[in-house]
């Protein structure tokens, strides 16, 4: 009901998040649990790491028009020195809620060569676990060294054959809050 009150639910037929012209999310039920461990202790007990969680950054913009795009650019700039443009992918937290999704799309347009996937097209919006779930998916992607197939005809997501060693996870709240994480293959 809360999302209905906010005008944030998808009306009509299901479509992938980037193809929802009027915007709106589809709720999903899921949970995500990550075990995060210092690399030393993982090594000592001979555990196999999926990935390295290098950085998490976040901030709160005022949400005036263009704020989310500008904020994502600022967060990206904090990660940029570490990024390898040929092998980085974006696991987007976009859920179809507007204007957040359009503003994120504008940010992604800055990086036309970076492959993008928005897992919410597959499993919907789960407000609490969304970011953790996407970090988990990013960790799996870099541990396999490749992405899963795109779920989008709009051009934001496209097939990606290149090896993926880094994934930037984005997170834009329906109402407030923006964040990003960098997940890297353990080399």
């Amino acid at each position, binding site marked *: *009901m809360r999302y209905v009150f906010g*005008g944030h639910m998808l*009306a009509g037929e299901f479509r992938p998040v980037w193809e929802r012209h009027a915007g709106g999310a589809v709720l999903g039920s899921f949970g995500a649990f990550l075990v995060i461990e210092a690399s030393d202790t993982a090594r000592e007990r001979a555990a196999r790491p999926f990935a390295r969680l290098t950085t998490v950054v976040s901030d709160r913009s005022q949400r005036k028009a263009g704020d989310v795009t500008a904020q994502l650019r600022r967060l990206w700039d904090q990660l940029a020195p570490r990024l390898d443009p040929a092998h980085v992918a974006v696991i987007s937290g976009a859920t179809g809620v507007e204007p957040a999704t359009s503003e994120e799309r504008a940010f992604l347009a800055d990086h036309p060569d970076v492959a993008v996937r928005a897992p919410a097209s597959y499993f919907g919006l789960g407000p609490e676990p969304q970011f953790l779930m996407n970090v988990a998916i990013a960790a799996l992607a870099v541990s396999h060294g490749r992405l899963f197939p795109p779920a989008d005809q709009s051009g934001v997501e496209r097939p990606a054959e290149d090896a993926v060693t880094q994934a930037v996870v984005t997170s834009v709240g329906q*109402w407030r809050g923006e964040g990003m994480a960098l997940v890297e293959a353990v080399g």
Partner: protein
Amino acid sequence: MADTTDRPIIVVTGMGVVTSLGAGKAENWDKLTAGTSGIHTITRFAVEGLKTRVAGTVDFLSIEPFCAAAMCERLADIATEEAIGESGLGTSGNFPGPLFLAVAPIEMEWHQRQQVAAAAGANGAVSYDDLIRAGTGGQFRSYFERLAFGSVAEHLAARFGTKGSPISLSTACASGATAIQLGVEAIRRGETEAALCAATDSSVNQESLIRFSLLSALSTHNDPPEGASKPFSKNRDGFVMAEGAGALVLESLDSAKARGARILGVIEGCGEMVDSFHRTRSSPDGKPIIGSIRNAIEDAGLTPDDIDYINAHGTSTPENDKMEYLGLSAVLGERVKTVPISSNKSMIGHTISAAGAVEAIFSLLTLEHQRIPPTINYQVPDPAIPLDVVPNVARDARVTHVISNSFGFGGQNVSLVMAREPA
């Protein structure tokens, strides 16, 4: 300025508090040390037929129609304004650090549900489809924001200009202490020189009261209301729900000294331990409570012998007070009988999500004034809990290191150790 393990020393440079006793540190401290109770008969809603009809509601503020989330925000606003004002840190609307807010879970109020149901204009019983139809179109858009768990923190971040994405948290009755712990840890990690740690709760509505009542957690001592909360007494029969907020400006000692700020106290150590024994009961061996207390003392670089006052969780439930005694006696040994301990909840009730912060502030005031607020309503000592509860009357005492306990349902336990002066 570093502590014994080379971490920054964390000091408090501003505090603000609201409870049923009043708004502001001065009024609360005067009443607390006079042994005044803020517990009264509930007038906010009809209590006919309810087993529990008393609470520590904040009745000198009103929100019509009542909305717990809006009241939480109001209480937090007042406490934060006092805390930031006292600290003199930053400029108006520009606080140079993050916000950690303990906030009660937010639920839709009955009047809001009734409004949506009325707007649905259903022929008969209101169905889910009717509610969706009424909710579509933006008529109730404000409820989307008001009912978001993060809405109170968002408001505070916007008003006071805290930095970054504000953290809203809930660890049940330990929430307020958790907010302080997160602030301490952020400064120790070197991410910031200052943090705003606040906690607010305004849960006294019909549903919350009945829910706690169904858990048999609440006192049913309705007459006189001020006698309902009687921590550590043999005739204690449950806690009393209450409202309030507390806010603290934490700062590294270096930062506070550099700007010549008045130092109100030191957060020396934070300890926590979680137990998964039961939804509401604590593990019968007391292990998590003992661990929480020990961890806090150890984090402070002290030994149990250094603690000379205990600001109790002391809820007045048969279970908590017994377990708190058990935990303290395991850590303090024979000293448990002589170290003064008192429960602010005997006067203000249990401010739930806010309790950890509100009681940390009262602990710091105890250090500042070298005066221990009493445990009131202590008429029938419990021979199974032989403690010096500072019965009924405040006491002047030399207090150097205080431990304040917060033990939450769901096995979430946090203890804080505080001192007047940096070591």
